[in-house]
């Protein structure tokens, strides 16, 4: 059964009066529990596809196509339902970490839970949540960095915090946009190990965007994007193909 079904997805951006088509009819099935790598050069539309998958953006109104999670179409959701969807179903990891610089490692990790549960819910479960956050950070090798601010961490450590933050609500889908793009090869490889560890026994679905074939090879399955289209689908996963 497909966890995520993408059909004929179109997305066009306007640059002034010029319309730039970024996705030109992407169709893709992602199975539940699969680690999918979307490989492509810069400008191929892979990040846009990821944003659409996460409900951060909407496809074109007329010819946009659809994204469905277990048969539930994202396009049919209202704005507040999309917020709810992001809170409950997906976790994002970005290339540039996107941590809040004023918050500590632990607070950054808990941010998603605070947003999901609201004040009362968070206060009710705060002890449990803090414990979960600490466990996630422990798995990421950051248990000694809980009170540090992002500026005091290395790039790899920041990205591990971002992964912990993405997983604090235990979402079934993790969306990662060039998670190793800002790291050296060794640190990138270590981070992918963390991905593997964090993926855990639940085998959550991971959709990872990358331009690096070596990184993509860690996924179960690789698809390649170019010019707003899926070029090869499916491509056998590197290590696990």
């Amino acid at each position, binding site marked *: 059964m497909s966890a995520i079904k993408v059909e004929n997805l179109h997305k066009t951006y306007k640059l002034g009066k010029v319309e730039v088509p970024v996705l030109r009819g992407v169709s893709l099935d992602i199975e539940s529990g699969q680690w999918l790598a979307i490989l492509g050069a810069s400008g191929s539309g892979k990040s846009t596809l990821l944003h659409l998958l996460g409900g951060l953006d909407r496809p074109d109104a007329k010819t946009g196509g659809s994204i469905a999670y277990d048969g539930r179409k994202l396009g049919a959701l209202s704005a507040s339902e999309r917020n709810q969807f*992001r809170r409950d179903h997906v976790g994002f990891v970005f290339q540039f970490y996107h941590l809040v610089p004023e918050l500590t490692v632990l607070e950054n990790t808990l941010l998603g839970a605070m947003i999901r549960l609201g004040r009362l819910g968070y206060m009710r479960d705060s002890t449990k949540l803090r414990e979960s956050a600490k466990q996630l950070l422990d798995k990421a090798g950051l248990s000694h960095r809980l009170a540090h601010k992002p500026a005091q961490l290395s790039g790899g450590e920041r990205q591990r915090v971002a992964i912990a933050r993405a997983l604090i609500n235990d979402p079934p889908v993790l969306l990662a946009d060039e998670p190793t793009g800002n790291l050296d090869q060794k640190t990138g490889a270590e981070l992918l190990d963390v991905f593997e560890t964090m993926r855990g026994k639940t085998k959550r679905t991971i959709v990872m965007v990358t331009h690096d074939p070596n990184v993509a090879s860690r996924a179960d399955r690789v698809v390649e994007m170019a010019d707003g289209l899926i070029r090869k689908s499916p491509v056998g996963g590197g290590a696990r193909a």
Partner: protein
Amino acid sequence: MFQSLLTRRYLTSKVMPLLASAAVMLSVAMELITWSVMGGFLEQLIQSGRTLMGDVEISRPQRGFGDYEKLIEMLEADEWIEAATPTIDAYGLVKLNAQQVTTCRIKGIDPESFDRVTGYYDTLYWKPIDTPLPRDKDREDPRLDPERRDTFEMTDRLGRNLYGLDIGTNSDRDQAVLGIEVFGKRGLRAEAGFVTDFPVFLPGLDVTLNVLPIDMSGGFLEPVARKLQIANEFSSNIFEIDSQTIYVPLPVLQNMLKMDRAERVDPGAPVEFIFDDQGNPIGRKMPEAIGVTPAKVTSVLVRAVGDHVPLEDLRERVAQIYERFEQQSAEAPPLGALDILTWEDRNSTLIGAIKKETGLVLFIFGIISLTSVFLVLAIFWSMISERTKDIGILRALGASGPGVAWLWVRYGLAIGVVGSLLGGVLAYVVITNINAIHEWMGSALGISIWDPQVYYFARIPEDFNATKAIIIVSAGIVSCGLGALIPAWRAARMDPVKALRFE
């Protein structure tokens, strides 16, 4: 939840919110100081005036009216009236020595009843005190000196009686009480307009009063001079009064102005001479008296019972009593020939002007304070641009548009709370030390803003009003919330994808 965490962290992490808080603080402090000083000034003016002049005044300037004892008896019999006192107001020249001559308002009073109406005894300056004034941290006030206690007890007693021991001749004589600022201009007041804390001790010196009496037809008679000893000085805290008023015993001024009790003669009676033994005329016989002209006063001041009798009602009541008095006394001028006015009526032009001035100043500062709204708006606009990526992160984590907007409104309110409370504290410190600050500005920078000759009071009002503080502080907080609304709306509408890509 994330809003409160981020608000706390944003507040303490950057210079921008500190600048915004400082702007709000200064704005709130400025409003509150202005309102407190101007409002305090107006309140002090009304209260002081009421204290010094009673609630209602019956007056007939220059010519005066007689039989006032009966009028006062009738007034004091009324349940609304606490006390009434006769006074005479005249202008004259006052000479302390060859160099110090000034024009003054000379007021003839009956000290005992004048005190019941105006609290006169409390205004006497030279009397022993046990605790120093709040500003007198070094206890330099001579009135605290136990060795001079006897002297100050004597000056207090002389001031209360306006009659007593002449230090030079060791005999009793009439005394005068000067406003503390009457001769202050000669050096007690510095050029920059500041009042020295402890004026020069004048009691015991002589002062010469010169007045110009008028006759029944309003013509001028020969000037009359009289030397009195200075018994004490008084301080009402109203510069205008303290610098221009001298109290003397009522009978003394009545005598000088020819307003005392006199026998009336027929001006058309034939002249009869007195001859010596040789039959030479040596004088003129006084014509036979055909009646008595009673002593006169120019005003009767009336004090209401308590503070709850409306002034307008009291004025009506006094007018009714006067009408009864007019029917009973042959010496009473008709009601239309007198003025019966409340203190506020008499000073309505001044009070109205000050009220308008206070309103105008507040309005202007209110407009200026609106800049704090725009300041917060501008700062938040810039902060939201700086925090675009954070907004993208929050949206990616599932925060709603209104949730993000509330973060910024809450942040604005937090800046408002911090800035406004600090502004309130700053205003409190400034207001309660405003005279010390003003004097420091004068001595260190040569700047004098509060000129007592313009503002009537020697000292700037130091009243910190809690109600005004609550209003201004609340307005400051609300202003910041309003200033944050538009940037918050912008943040809420921000495209999360663009926000995440923002560099």
